[in-house]
């Protein structure tokens, strides 16, 4: 496989670069999965991260990428119902999976979910970059059969970093959503 790199306007002649030898046809795979309730079929290279698949291939840029090594939590989505890091998951691993991203919570003109509403009402965000990840983890908490205790909530939230340190309101928002779901 070859690709042509366009020359800069007044730069040297176009250079032809060889794609690394292992980007061979066998490194590509056809996958089928469900994203926000819609079936998706795609050809992906083995090394394509799920975060890049969602953002670049499907245009679902609500899933934010921060650290790209599993620390910050901004890229968290629900993978078969459980919060998971899309930067620590390859798209090809998701064959047959059911994926939910922040876009799937209140699509189009649907009303906000209780979690989204609680984040809005409690101002559970500052710059907002980490918000989609927090919202997805909080959504998973509200979908558990029983109300998680305080320690479990703290444990789940510890999987996310807010660099504005807006944790107090985030925690308040999550508690409000849990109150609404399970009763106070």
């Amino acid at each position: 496989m070859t690709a042509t790199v366009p020359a800069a306007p007044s730069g040297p002649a176009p250079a032809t670069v060889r794609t690394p030898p292992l980007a061979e046809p066998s490194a590509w795979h056809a996958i089928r999965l469900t994203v926000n309730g819609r079936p998706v079929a795609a050809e992906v290279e083995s090394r394509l991260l799920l975060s890049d698949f969602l953002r670049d291939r499907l245009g679902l840029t609500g899933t934010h990428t921060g650290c790209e090594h599993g620390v910050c939590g901004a890229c968290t989505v629900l993978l078969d119902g459980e919060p998971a890091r899309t930067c620590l998951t390859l798209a090809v691993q998701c064959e047959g999976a059911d994926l939910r991203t922040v876009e799937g919570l209140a699509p189009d003109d649907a009303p906000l979910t209780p979690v989204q509403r609680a984040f809005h009402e409690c101002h559970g965000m500052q710059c907002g970059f980490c918000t989609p990840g927090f919202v997805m983890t909080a959504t998973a908490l509200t979908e558990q059969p029983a109300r998680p205790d305080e320690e479990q909530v703290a444990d789940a939230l510890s999987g996310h970093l807010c660099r504005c340190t807006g944790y107090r309101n985030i925690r308040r928002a999550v508690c409000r959503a849990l109150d609404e779901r399970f009763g106070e």
Partner: protein
Amino acid sequence: MKPTPFDYTAPRTVGDALALLADDSRDAKVLAGGQSLIPMLNMRLARPEVLVDITRIPELGRVVVDSDGCLRIGAAVRQSRAAADPAVRDGWPLLADAIGLIGHPQIRGRGTVCGSLAHHDPAAELPTAALALDARFVVAGPRGTRTVEAADFFVATFATAVEPDELLTEVVFPPLAAHHGRAFEELTRRHGDFATVGVAVLLERDPASDTVRRARVVCCGAGPTPVRLTAAEAALTGTDAGPAARAEAARAALGALAPADDVHSTAEHRRESAAHLLVRACTTAWERTR
């Protein structure tokens, strides 16, 4: 950064997985939950040519208690699933405790028990728990299947007895005595971080004499493998696990541990912390024997 190019395969049988690992024309690496491997790929610290995803092999997805009372956890079993299993919580609570200390739910939902063991980060909780629980490791390869004891499994930082053409298919935990108590204490910079140092303690109580019949003390983050502190175990055995015995065990631990200085902690801080954690873990473990 992004991973370098590689091929990906998802075999459906252990035999197929082994055939892929044995193909020596390409550098193959096992992929299970990927929570340690994929960061290494992203950072380009690992550059395998083929990833063999073993999570689609049905026989590796089992958590069972066999007829000998041993807990057997297959290589594709995710940490959160193992920790939530009633058999694990009731019979091997130290294992459930150790899993609860790994990162956070977003990681434990994807990471596998065997993956953490095979990866063998010496600061990780599961290798330490496995050593404390006398786990046995079932390793399949082109030369057949063998079983490796925990004491022989962990070789050095990120190195185990599993050869590149072999696969850890299962970890086996023998049953524990009725009157046992456990505790896993660790010092971390933040909740969910890797331990700077950690201590796992198992105590078995002799109900007749109310003394420690058997002790197991293992430390993580203090060497290239989990460190079993036999001198501390000896200091506890036969005692009432009271303050004097615990202090003696802590002194024994201080004498036995020789961690290295690193960016997170000095050797001295690690040793002192381990000794304090040991006292605390012994107290909790002994209370739980009742």
